[in-house]
């Protein structure tokens, strides 16, 4: 349950954000990110539907590349 998924913010309304990763969109709560200034196009790590931390685009990209490798390894 501790898996965190890097996602990009597409729109923000109050504490809710529409986020995207790998072409999949999800609603994400920003309620735990009240000390951070978040904007559209920022990257966040999402756990059980809640953003837990902001990350850089490079870190998000790097995480996804490695997740892709691991997923490919599990499916092979």
């Amino acid at each position, binding site marked *: *349950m501790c898996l965190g998924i890097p996602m990009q913010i597409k729109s923000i309304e109050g504490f809710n954000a529409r986020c995207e990763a790998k072409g999949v969109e999800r609603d994400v709560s920003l*309620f735990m990110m009240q000390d*951070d200034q978040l904007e559209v196009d920022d990257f966040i790590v999402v756990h059980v539907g809640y953003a837990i931390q902001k990350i850089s685009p490079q870190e998000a990209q*790097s995480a996804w590349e490695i997740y892709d490798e*691991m997923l490919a390894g599990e499916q092979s």
Partner: protein
Amino acid sequence: MTISAKQWLQQIHALPQRKDKVKIMNVCGGHERSITMAGLRKALPDYIELVPGPGCPVCVCPEEDVFEAIQLALNEDIILVAFGDMLRVPVNVPKAQARTLEQAKAQGADIRPIASPTEAVAIAKQNPDQAVVFFAAGFETTTAPVAAMMVEGVPDNLSLLLSGRLTWPAVAMLLDSGTPGFDALIAPGHVSTIMGPEEWEFVVDKHNIPAAVAGFQPDSLLAAMYSTLRQLNDERYFLDNCYPSLVKPGGNKSARRQLDKAMDVYDANWRGVGIIPGSGYVLNQQYSSHDVRAQFPSYADDARKRAGQMPPGCDCAQVVLGKIYPNECKLFGTACKPRNPIGPCMVSDEGACRIWWAGGMRETVNRVSEQEAVG
């Protein structure tokens, strides 16, 4: 400059070879999954052992809580929602009775898997005339969003059956026992993202054991292993942060404030392990009207009588504490497989038994025979 997993492996192999075994424990199912799926055990020098420790919240959720959830769902006019893993965790009751939430659902109970606390709120709003109970098991990373959900505000008809646990007290218990079974610790990445890396300083300061926080990718895990091995070799111990992109000093302060606002910490039972001081979350007084244990106290009383129950022969508690490896349990791969799990470690995606099975580490070890041979 970032260092790749391959380069970290080369660095580890370049360290002076130790004659004694070095046991490095992780306390996160996500870490164990990455280690196993990336085949890191085979890639490391022989003197290094990677030990999965208390890192699976589903595995430590006490039987009485699962029993209580099943009985509530079967006997009360409620909708019970829970993270998907919890639906297949078995309790030790006669086969004629519902042994899992999944079986209770098959018997007609309204039980729905969810992936987020926000789904629990949505279901409660969609069903305003019905009580909705959210059976919420998890470590700090998952309990913090549950606390956030409560602080943000939930409908009156949504209540919690909370089985939240803190990770570090289980490690403290192992270390205080005098036989922790590990020489170095890989601290959990997302727990530390929420709570801050400082929570793990006691491992170094009080016990002189090297520790490093790691992320979930092989490069971060290997960096943490390298750090702890270097610390052992140099006999200079400190808490390293090998996941700085997410783990910040003090953690996620907003999330921590919400945890503090909604929940108190209490001495909690861990499945098969017993009471660990200061290791559980309970809704505090302000939110007691949403505490299912206050609303249905007789179920909590009945469930409490089952404290300590474990399926016969199940060694999950020993696996959780890192005392044995999954393939040393005599049920592993025989009576207990992912399709027919006996214990929670074979149910959850974060359970060491399920991870080892999925990773092809299926060769069993006859622990009793080995001990007899030694003895």
